[in-house]
């Protein structure tokens, strides 16, 4: 199981992946926006997204859970 957490304060601009779907290593899960920059958050292993903890428009803090891949 891999937990994907935020590395910075950001707004969730786009949720690209969906809960329950399969992803490959390097697939884009969500796109964050901070300081006028778009930052794609990528899967770091292949598996199934068992939890997607954020929605578009959410403000997340450093360390917040974004997704769980199993």
């Amino acid at each position, binding site marked *: 199981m891999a937990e*994907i957490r935020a590395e910075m304060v*950001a707004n969730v601009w786009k949720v690209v992946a969906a809960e329950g779907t399969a992803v490959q290593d390097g697939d884009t899960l969500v796109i964050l926006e901070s300081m006028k*920059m778009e930052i794609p958050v*990528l*899967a770091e292993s292949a598996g199934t997204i068992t939890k997607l903890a954020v929605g578009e428009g959410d403000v997340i803090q450093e360390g917040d859970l974004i997704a769980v891949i199993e």
Partner: protein
Amino acid sequence: MPAVPESVLVANRGEIARRIGRTARRLGIRVIAVHSDADAGLPFVTEADEAIEIGPASPALSYLNGDAILAAAATTGAQAIHPGYGFLAENPAFARQVLDAGLTWIGPSPEAIEAMGDKISARNLMREAGLPVAEGSEQAVLDADTAVRHAERIGYPVMIKAAAGGGGIGMSIAGDEAALRAGFETARSRAERFFGSHAILIERFIARARHVEVQIVGLADGRVIALGERDCSVQRRHQKLAEETPSPGVSAPLRERMLGAAVRAGEAVGYRGAGTVECLVDAETEDFVFLEMNTRLQVEHPVTEMVTGIDLVEQQLRIADGADASFDPDRVRSVGHALELRVYAEDPVRFLPSPGVIGQWHEPAGTGVRVDAGYTAGNTVSPHYDPLLAKLVVHGMTRQEALERASKAIADFVISGPKTNLPFHAELLASHAFASGIYDTAVVGGMRPAAGGHRG
């Protein structure tokens, strides 16, 4: 007629609002700041003669809210509005509103802003004025099939750009049809989101290019002069990190051609005030092409000020009021070498944003060292705005002296809290590519090949 307005409202934030305020105060002009609720404690607000809160942190509700800014101008009796850069600086509709309200707009005419605002029309206009342009689409490209047809005519790789864009947003390079189709869709959606227009420009990509721009000033008497060039090739994600003047990659004959072309560009649109003509220089052939014109004060204007001794904000204020420049346009001399390093709130390895509360803040000082800062100890760097904390600007009689002073200044600059790219700048100055002066827009990519996406 007085040489400058009595009061000026600065419709911007951070380092540039503070820098404009500094010159205005020196000239005896009353300074009015407008700010979002998030910025209430920043130096540009606390140092102003008057400050008006115009909305919440989100730029759309504050710094892009023209009605709130005009209302603040009316309340405070401001005579003029200086837009800085970004936000409303290149918005011709806002410039017109300012003029219609009977205020002085510190910038070129709305018509000049409009003519240069769209990259495609600007390109065509500049070609008519005799400037070289890269081979590309002469009309807005609205679908991927048309983009592919253009690329096949021009030859891959091509550059994909938002016609109404800026700041590198939506910009990418495509080496083949698949990359072009993917890049086109990304560019189109970002252009729509950030600029409200999905028009795309396809241009030939120049592999080993330097990004060199010319500072121009349109005087009150209608003459346009050029104040030298700035090399802005040190970029990450198509955004500038460091700039210097003179450019180590521009020979005297090339400089003469570029400055002449920039003057013609300004004359073609009846330019008044400070503006910048951006070009790409092919490092191998010494050819250059027009990229775009920025119809406002440029972020990196201080390097030009350091070598010429001319305060560009002062000239903007005087020219907008119909007065002569403070210097003799026929006797401009450039002395020594200047370098600007943009200090960003971002980690120095992957360049990811790092907002937060600033603990310590200690600026370097000394001969030839200037710091234009937007923040100080105790301020909060918000995720709503760009990551520019400060500009470290250094002058020396030679490039070598400027680089040595810059290295020392970096070591003396203390910022705690948000991560900053100061360690990156130290590495840049120590790198062989930068120290040699023989570098191009790929220099940061060479130092940080992996700095791209953000892995979980």
